[in-house]
């Protein structure tokens, strides 16, 4: 019945169905045994990764893949529409979530104890939601999957006590406003087009251009997504949410949520509203790039004033969102390619630094910068990964961060938008300060059992502190992520020419 050919034909469905099934199975089985959760989840993550890789391959060889759910043709049924853009990001998201999942066993058991099954189930549901957002070709369906990803995200973030719950609830409010605005926007689109299929709407809209409702729909959709992606000044929910959540969670949510939302923005703008409308008919381009510039500057400066590693990283995420939004709204090929490339690069970079931060706080039980003391000696490999991640965020070749920055800056120069160029460079310089401040603490100051205790410079021959690395599974996945940063950097030329340019030129001409 289900031959290999049959399986490859159904890859899009498998990508969402398998994690969902695994989430359900984990919830059910966990009442009987705690031990099955981890292997089951990792297996599902692996299958999703393989399926997305297979799908990517398919798209590369045959072009756009369309999968009709329930056998109904669009616009009546829901379709999955996989092109170069989302198949690429699918692979990245699957990879990031798989790596984080694989490395989460020890930390998750310590963190959630008996509720670990629920954690894995929510984790898988969250990934399912992201996959669904990436793969769908239906504007309303995107909302439903968005809510799956958000709801599980709220729960995962709010699990800690006190401020974690508070920031979780804050996230619920902001997230709901964002999602509901998006829903409102889709409603406006539906009012004037009568369709929910993205491609279909995109085909109808050009005939309706004088209508102000399109502009409203555009503003609502974008506004909603901006809240979700935490673009300045709507970023208020993000830093606390990422800071107070357990590290396993923040290293899942931080790399993925904002990036997938940026994908959604790209998708909504290019497929639904079309390039011509978004860049030629209405003049939002310039204000949005300036908003991105502000986001970059504010994010970087706020990161400077943080005393906690995770909060600092969270503000860097805010700045990175500015990179991508700004790059996209530059509206030229280089800028847009840079934004898309940065989605995958930044997902991996953020994963790497957040996982490293998680591994560090797993051992030190603290995420203040002062707790980094002596960590180059105690956890050299973890710090090595952190260094790579930091360099990538700074934008040092040959890590992948350099290459996306390359495109973004050249996009800025091409568009003559030197403010954006300056913001990118300033943020790189600030990132140098941020990361080397951490590295200095970790490198120059000796390990002191209790964090916060001040002591003099390290004796040259202090070998008392021995190496105590993070648990093996955490370490292996972390190092994999770190190495991938370089691999991705080396192959970024290929990715851009073979994949991203397949999407961008068709739309920008």
């Amino acid at each position: 019945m289900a031959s290999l050919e049959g399986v490859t034909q159904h890859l899009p469905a498998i990508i969402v169905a398998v994690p969902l099934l695994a989430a359900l199975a984990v919830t059910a089985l966990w009442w009987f045994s705690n031990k099955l959760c981890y292997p089951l989840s990792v297996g599902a993550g692996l299958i999703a990764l393989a399926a997305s890789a297979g799908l990517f391959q398919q798209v590369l060889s045959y072009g756009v893949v369309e999968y009709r759910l329930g056998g109904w043709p669009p616009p009546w049924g829901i379709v999955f529409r996989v092109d170069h853009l989302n198949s690429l990001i699918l692979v990245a998201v699957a990879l990031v979530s798989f790596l984080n999942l694989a490395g989460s066993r020890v930390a998750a058991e310590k963190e959630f104890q008996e509720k670990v099954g629920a954690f894995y189930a929510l984790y898988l549901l969250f990934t399912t939601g992201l996959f669904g957002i990436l793969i769908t070709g239906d504007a309303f369906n995107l909302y439903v999957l968005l809510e799956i990803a958000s709801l599980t995200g709220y729960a995962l973030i709010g699990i800690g006590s006190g401020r974690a719950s508070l920031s979780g609830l804050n996230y619920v409010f902001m997230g709901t406003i964002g999602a509901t605005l998006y829903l409102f926007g889709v409603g406006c689109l539906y009012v004037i087009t009568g369709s929910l299929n993205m491609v279909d709407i995109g085909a109808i809209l050009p005939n309706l251009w004088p209508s102000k409702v399109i502009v409203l729909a555009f503003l609502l959709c974008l506004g909603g997504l901006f809240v979700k992606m935490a673009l300045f000044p709507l970023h208020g929910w993000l830093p606390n949410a990422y800071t107070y959540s357990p590290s396993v969670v923040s290293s899942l949510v931080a790399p993925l949520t904002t990036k997938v939302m940026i994908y959604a923005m790209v998708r909504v703008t290019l497929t639904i509203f079309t390039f011509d409308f978004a860049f030629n008919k209405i003049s939002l381009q310039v204000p949005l790039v300036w908003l991105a510039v502000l986001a970059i500057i504010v994010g970087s400066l706020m990161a400077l004033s943080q005393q906690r590693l995770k909060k600092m990283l969270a503000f860097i995420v805010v700045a990175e969102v500015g990179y991508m939004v700004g790059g996209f709204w530059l509206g030229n090929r280089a800028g847009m390619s840079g934004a898309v490339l940065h989605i995958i690069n930044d997902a991996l970079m953020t994963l790497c630094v957040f996982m490293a931060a998680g591994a560090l706080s797993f051992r030190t039980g603290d995420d203040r910068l002062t707790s980094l003391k002596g960590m180059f000696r105690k956890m050299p490999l973890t710090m090595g990964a952190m260094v790579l991640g930091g360099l990538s965020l700074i934008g040092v070749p040959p890590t992948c961060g350099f290459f996306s920055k390359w495109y973004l800056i050249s996009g800025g120069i091409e568009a003559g938008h030197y403010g954006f160029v300056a913001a990118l460079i300033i943020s790189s310089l600030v990132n140098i300060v941020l990361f080397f401040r951490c590295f200095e603490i970790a490198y120059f100051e000796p390990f002191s059992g209790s964090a916060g205790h001040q002591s003099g410079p390290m004796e040259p021959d202090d070998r008392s502190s021995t190496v105590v690395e993070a648990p093996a599974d955490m370490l292996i996945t972390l190092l994999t992520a770190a190495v991938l940063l370089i691999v991705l950097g080396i192959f970024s030329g290929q990715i851009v020419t073979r994949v991203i340019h397949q999407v961008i030129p068709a739309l920008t001409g």
Partner: protein
Amino acid sequence: MKRLGLIAIMVFGGLLFSISFELPDLGDARSPASTHVSPYYIEQAIHDTSVPNVVTAILADYRGYDTLFETAVIFSAGLACFFLLRITDRKAPKARFYRHLATGLTLRVEKGGRLPEDTKEFERIDSAWVPSDVIINMTCRLVVPFIQLFALYVIAHGHHSPGGGFQGGVIFGAAIILYAISNNLRRTLRRTSERTSALLGSGGVIIYLGTGLLCILLGAGFLNYSSLSLVPGLDPVSARSYGILIVEIGVGIAVTAVMVWIYYNLASAGKLDEGL
């Protein structure tokens, strides 16, 4: 900041108001919304799925994928409430209270004392327990079966009248919640334990998802119920109808269980003791 927000809201409202004049008139049958996609559903649903209630047909078939994830949303909410609230430490409390059913006397058993668990005359209660009213108690006990029956009807009759898995499921869940409110949580838990509700919750979604996956195994696309006709010798149209029924039942089970599950956690603040 707050004032800024309010101004923003007002501006937003004004913007919406100004654009409301551009929207099609209310109830306009010629608006794009009513003429582009939806006529197909109204005219073809009965032929495609033999389900007269177009809403059900769209919900479970044309846009069945949406509904699958709608169920998953509910399930996530149940799981999320459990994850957030449930307190799993099994520390024995200092003292436990028992009520002698026949006399209504309350017994306080100190830690380490012998607990009359196996005896039928005692029932465990909490310190915050409020005596329940006999009239309410009895009325609810009488009403609950009828509500449940009605819920089943709503689920089963979703093809022909308003209703379906969600509505029926919520009503069924509400019946259980009513029982829990009118009696107490512990007694409800003895009938529908937390584990049962969790298992049913995931089971319901698995029924839905499994149907969809079964369709793949039978050679058609995900959630394409027409392929179910291969099994018992149905024609594709009635196969779709049955497929819709199956997933509606799955939705009903899932929603029931999850509503109850959420209630358990919210009402007892995760302790699963007395409830409201």
